[in-house]
């Protein structure tokens, strides 16, 4: 079967073999848990607990700070130790709630009890999702209840479940597709109940045949839901490319998926929706793949949010001596960590231990204008020219050739034979343009 896809894209080394056959294991934290108040796009959440308060598993510890914002719930029971700035994976210190774990895992009342979503109104479902603190778990962390509240419910034609997992090495979504397909279908059914005219499509890259067959089996005979096979290519799981591959509709940086009649959610987000609505479990855990050449034992872990990466790595068996770079997330868009004492957040997906740093290994050399960056760019940009303008700080020219349409997928930088640090420059330039617009 030929999978649907988009024009452009790259084929980085997949590296999924290392962890794809390892079942998800639950791990529990020993040390303190850290819950940054800003784990999502939008306003930071407002803490509603104070130092010394006792909290339970599933208890809301911070309330959404606006419409585009969301709640944060505790993943353990224990005592609030502090509300103070803590280092996060991005390298920024963010105001966080620190909880001392009492290891009792006492839950709030009603936690885990069954609930029938068909008896709930649309408002109730959206409220539950907001209360549960669900955000886009593919990486961006856009509050899910906002995504699920378009101007017109009837105008949504497709609810897409993003199971592409195009980032190399990551297998967390893949494992979830194998291990809890019923939650994926259940979560999708909850979303479909919000949109009367929508069709649900579960999109999976063709390098995951087992997941495809399990989910195809699961959706057989289920109304309004189908599985769509996509070609394995990076960045197939990027929202705009996914929408195009699944529906042939195009959106750009200034539009939301809803403008094309689509709602897109990551596999783990859909499962979290199911857990929140049907099982009364808020978003308090995250599937994290510990992998890479430097990982002593690759693992797929179910990790309580707030647990430190350091502990996750220790429980996985640590990393080898020659590990030289540790990345939170995948190798294409993940963030390199200089300190492992940062918490697992709602958007964390992997801990990648690399024994080879190809960025440091290759010095950038002169651009030979080969055009490889142009042919892989999923947004059809001219990275070579964008780089010229970025280097000369010509932000106007950068915008004139549509530089702001770049979403920093890294494909151009991956293929560049001169090893130029294109994405890195674009990040800086785009930030400075966005900052100057804000003024």
């Amino acid at each position, binding site marked *: 079967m030929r999978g649907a896809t988009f024009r452009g894209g790259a084929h980085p080394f997949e590296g999924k073999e290392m962890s794809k056959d390892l079942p998800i294991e639950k791990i529990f934290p020993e040390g303190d848990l850290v819950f940054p108040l800003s784990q999502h796009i939008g306003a930071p959440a407002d803490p509603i607990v104070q130092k010394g308060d006792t909290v339970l598993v599933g208890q809301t510890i911070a309330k959404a700070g606006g419409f585009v914002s969301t709640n944060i719930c505790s993943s353990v029971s224990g005592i609030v130790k502090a509300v103070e700035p803590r280092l996060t994976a991005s390298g920024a210190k963010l105001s966080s709630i620190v909880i001392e774990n009492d290891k009792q895992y006492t839950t709030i009342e009603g936690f885990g009890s069954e609930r029938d979503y068909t008896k709930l109104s649309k408002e109730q479902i959206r409220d539950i999702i907001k209360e549960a603190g669900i955000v886009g778990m593919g990486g961006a962390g856009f509050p899910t209840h906002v995504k699920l509240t378009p101007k017109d419910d009837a105008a949504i034609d497709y609810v897409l479940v993003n199971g592409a997992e195009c980032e190399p090495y990551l297998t967390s979504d893949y494992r979830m597709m194998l291990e809890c397909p019923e939650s994926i279908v259940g979560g999708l059914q909850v979303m479909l109940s919000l949109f009367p005219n929508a069709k649900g499509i579960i999109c999976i890259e063709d390098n995951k045949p087992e997941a495809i067959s399990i989910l195809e089996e699961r959706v057989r005979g289920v109304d309004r839901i189908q599985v769509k096979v996509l070609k394995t290519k990076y960045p197939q799981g990027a929202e705009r490319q996914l929408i195009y591959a699944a529906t042939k509709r195009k959106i750009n940086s200034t539009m939301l998926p809803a403008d094309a009649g689509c709602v897109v959610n990551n596999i783990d987000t859909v499962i979290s929706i199911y857990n929140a609505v049907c099982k009364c479990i808020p978003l308090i855990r995250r599937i994290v793949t510990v992998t890479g050449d430097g990982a002593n034992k690759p693992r797929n872990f179910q990790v309580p949010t707030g647990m430190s990466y350091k502990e996750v790595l220790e429980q996985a068996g640590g990393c080898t001596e020659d590990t030289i770079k540790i990345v939170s997330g995948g*190798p294409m868009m993940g963030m*390199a960590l200089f300190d492992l004492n940062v918490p697992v957040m709602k958007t964390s997906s992997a801990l990648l231990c690399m024994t080879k740093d190809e960025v440091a290994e290759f010095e950038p*050399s002169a651009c030979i204008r080969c055009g*490889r960056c142009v042919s892989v760019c999923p947004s059809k*940009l001219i990275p070579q020219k964008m780089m010229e303008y970025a280097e000369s700080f010509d932000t106007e020219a950068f915008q004139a050739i549509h530089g702001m349409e770049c979403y920093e997928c890294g494909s151009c930088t991956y293929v*560049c*034979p001169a090893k130029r640090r294109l994405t890195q420059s674009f990040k800086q330039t785009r930030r400075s343009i966005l900052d100057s617009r804000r003024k």
Partner: protein
Amino acid sequence: MSKLYNVSASPHVRDKVTTKNIMQDVVIGLLPAVLAGIWVFKVPALLVLSTTCVTCILTEYFYERFMKKPITTSDYSALVTGLLLGMNLPSTIPLWIAMLGSVFAILVVKQLFGGLGQNFMNPALGARCFLLISFTGRMTSFTVDGVSQATPLALIKNADKTVAVTETLASNGVSLFDMFIGTTGGVIGETSAIAILIGAAYLFIKRIINWRIPIMYLGSFSIFVLLFGGYGLDGSYLLSQLLGGGLLLGAFFMATDYVTCPITPNGRIIYGLCLGVLTGIFRIFGGSAEGVSYAIIFCNLLVPLIEKITIPKPFGYVKMKNKK
């Protein structure tokens, strides 16, 4: 924490292909034509090619050494320039002219404009045109097997248009088959069409070059000569135009030079079209039977303009315009 880890912005992985790999592939792609040239023109061709390659590499090395710049001779780009220049010279050229051309190519056309990636003109072709203007006689006398020969294109250009092309060629002891395998008069690397096509196929398979420039170039050129060549729809005339002169070498190896061709996909199509038309004009209406080198360096100058008008619409852009 005791150990310090590397930190950088994403992406953290890189493709294996490097500039050096690409240049190596280009050298491999050129080899069939180089070997064919040595087979046809014997030792003198080998001497010319060695001279240009060595001089190009040394010029680059000494310039960068002298200017205290990083030495880039190991990226093979100077070797590619040397090979291409040698392939664009007749085997009878005095070696000092070949050396002069090599120095001109690397020093003036490439390094003075900033080195690899910055030259606006193909160094080998820039040097060839410089030599062609300076030493016209020596640059246009060709000898095959010790007998001096005019190029097939020159024969056709000076022939009576009422005589069939194949007859014109035959009366001078040349056939289309000779042009195909390369035993005709011409510069070292251009005569053997089959060798050039084998090398080009290699570059296509390795995805070093793509169809846009060569196909648009050869296509628009074919249409142009059929319209204005004066032979009407004559297959053997078209074939002699395609096989003769530097067209194939130029279309596959020099027009596709990354540095001096447009980077935008549509720009490459326009560039190919311009090349075809210009080559046609130069060959049919110009004083010389040749036109490829001039067409390419002229179009090199158009590249910034072509790129400016062919910046593609980004993904999803059209929809935004239609939406009010």
